[in-house]
């Protein structure tokens, strides 16, 4: 869905989600955070899920089923 400002919501949301994961990787690699694999999995699945959800929400249906 692109509004009047021509913002691609999917790219924006995906960028934010990817950046959040990158921040977690940064904190973990720098030693500021000791993230377990389980919590990282939660973060990754959340990011991918958010991107998929945005992809679905921003898709304009051609017809209603």
């Amino acid at each position, binding site marked *: 869905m692109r509004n009047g400002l021509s913002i691609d919501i999917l790219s924006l949301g995906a960028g934010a989600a990817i950046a959040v994961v990158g921040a977690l990787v940064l904190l973990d690699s720098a030693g500021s955070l000791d993230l377990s694999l389980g919590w990282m999995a939660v*973060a990754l699945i959340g990011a991918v899920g958010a991107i998929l959800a945005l992809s679905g929400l921003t898709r304009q249906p051609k017809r209603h089923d």
Partner: protein
Amino acid sequence: MNDTPVSEPPREEPSGEATTEQMPPPRRLLRSTGDRVIAGVAGGLGRYFGIDPVVFRIGFALSLFFGGLGALAYLLLAVFVPTDGDPDRAQRLGARLRALGIWRGLGLVAIAIVAFFGLSALAAVAAFAVGLGWGVPVAIVIIAIGALLAIASLRGGARWLIPPAVAIAIGGGVAAASDLDVRGGIGEREYHPTTVRSIPADGYRLGAGRLVVDLRGLDWGKHRVLPLEVSLGVGQADVFVPKRVCVTGTTHAGVGESEVTGERNDGVDVDHTPAGSRSTPRLNIDASVDVGQLRVINSDTADVDRPGFGPGPFHEDTAPLRAAEARACGTG
């Protein structure tokens, strides 16, 4: 003799119309448009088989944890089984695939496979870089790609960048969280120490590959207590000890499987503490594998090259290993 033909009561010939009226129309598997969560596959299957669709939904969900064949089946059913209403996107995709013909369809499948392996390679490269100690640069790259996506969203978007960005984020994220370390080298390392002094003080380490430490050639005196550290980034680590040696300490597998003296565990963050005992001779192990398999095999006869494959006490039956451990540690 009476030649007059005997008139028989007219038999009712079955007509096509009568058959049509009497026989119910053949059931056809259709995806449900009224009872759908994703593509109506479970709803259609439930209606076809007369079973609650929730059963199929649970089955498809569970299949994701067992190889994902159910997901593939769902995808194929979504694409190639029509809906009971207006054609949806999946049905139109299926029609397009059929219209493309076999070779073009195979070509598309090939492209999808190449894309899948390409993205997997990208994730592996990111994970490997993190394992080499470049976690911070990789993280900065991931954040930069995220920022690039956000900026590009103001100029129409850059959706093509999302799959590679996700692949890099997954590879880097998993490697960072599992503390992957592949700086110990790559390849196959096999050690058969015959004296305690020949064992490195900081233990045995390998970045990626197969690490074998066979301690069965050591002189395990009756009161020997041997501390040992084993660390592997990605791959398989096998530690062999005589069956009369009690194994204590801790083992850790970030992602994968640990099989320690016959006790098998798998999954994520697999920690195992062998039976606490002060029996001697004793191996006090501190072993970790970031991604892969860790085995401590207490057997006098196990083959170093093929433990766990073919006939033998491993994988097929680990009870002898557990029994030997219980005897050695005095816990049986």
